C-alpha cells in the first residue's frame, strides 16, 4: 500500500528510488534487530516456519532468499526478521534483497502512479490506456519472474 502511495506522490522514477531506499533500509534494520537484539523472542514466536527457512538457506543459500523475495508468500516484514535468524551473510542479504525486490517495487510504484493519473483524469483516453496497459504488463512480467526462478531452482537441483 505504501509503495502504491509512493508512486502516486513522487512519480515513477523518484517513487521507485525512494521506495527502494526505504524498503532496503527497513529490511536491513529488521534483520539486524532479529540477529542482535531480539533473536530469542522471534525464535520463540516463529519456530515452525523458521525451521523451513533455515533449511532452505542451508540448502540453497542466496537463491532461496531470492525466491522468497520474488514470491511474496510470507509477509515482507515477517521475512526480514526471520532471515536475521538464519546464517546468511548481511551483505549478501542486502544485495540479493535489493535486487530481487526491485522488479516488484517498480511495478507497484508504476501502478500507483498510473492509478493516480487515472483517478484524477490527467491526460486523455490514450494516456489512460497507456498507463493501464503498462501497469498490467509490468504486473504480468513481475508475476512471471517467480516461475522462472522456480525452473532455475529445479534445474539446479537436478544437476
Amino acid at each position, binding site marked *: 500500500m505504501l509503495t502504491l502511495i509512493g508512486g502516486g506522490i513522487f512519480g515513477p522514477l523518484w517513487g521507485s528510488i525512494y521506495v527502494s531506499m526505504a524498503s532496503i533500509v*527497513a529490511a536491513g*534494520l529488521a534483520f539486524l534487530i532479529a540477529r542482535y537484539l531480539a533473536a530469542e523472542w522471534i525464535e520463540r514466536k516463529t519456530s515452525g516456519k523458521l525451521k523451513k527457512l533455515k533449511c532452505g538457506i542451508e540448502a540453497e543459500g542466496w537463491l532461496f532468499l531470492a525466491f522468497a523475495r520474488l514470491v511474496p508468500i510470507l509477509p515482507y516484514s515477517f521475512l526480514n526478521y526471520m532471515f536475521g535468524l538464519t546464517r546468511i551473510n548481511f551483505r549478501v542479504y542486502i544485495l540479493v534483497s535489493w535486487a530481487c525486490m526491485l522488479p516488484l517495487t517498480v511495478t507497484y510504484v508504476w501502478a500507483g502512479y498510473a492509478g493516480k493519473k487515472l483517478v484524477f483524469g490527467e491526460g486523455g483516453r490514450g494516456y489512460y490506456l497507456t498507463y493501464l496497459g503498462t501497469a498490467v504488463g509490468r504486473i504480468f512480467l513481475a508475476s512471471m519472474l517467480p516461475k522462472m526462478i522456480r525452473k532455475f531452482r529445479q534445474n539446479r537441483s537436478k544437476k
Partner: protein
Amino acid sequence: MSDSSNQDNTSVGASHSRPVRYGKRLVGMLAVGLAIWLLLAHDLLNPICEWFRSDFELWLNNHSVLAPLVYILVYILSVVV
C-alpha cells in the same frame, strides 16, 4: 511449577497484547484509508478534497528534501514496528 506460571504469564500477555495489536492496525488502516480517500475522492466533499490535495502538493513542492525523508521514515517504521 515454573513452566505453568510462565505459560500463564504468556497467555495473559497474549490476551492483553492482541486487542492492542488489532487496535493499532485498525487505527493505522483508518488513517491510511482517510488519507487515500481525501487524496482520491471526487464526489464527496469535493472542495475539501481539492484543498487538501492542493495544500499537500504545495507542501511537497516546497519540501523536496523533507517530504521524501518523511515518507521513508514512515515506510521504515511501518515495516520494522
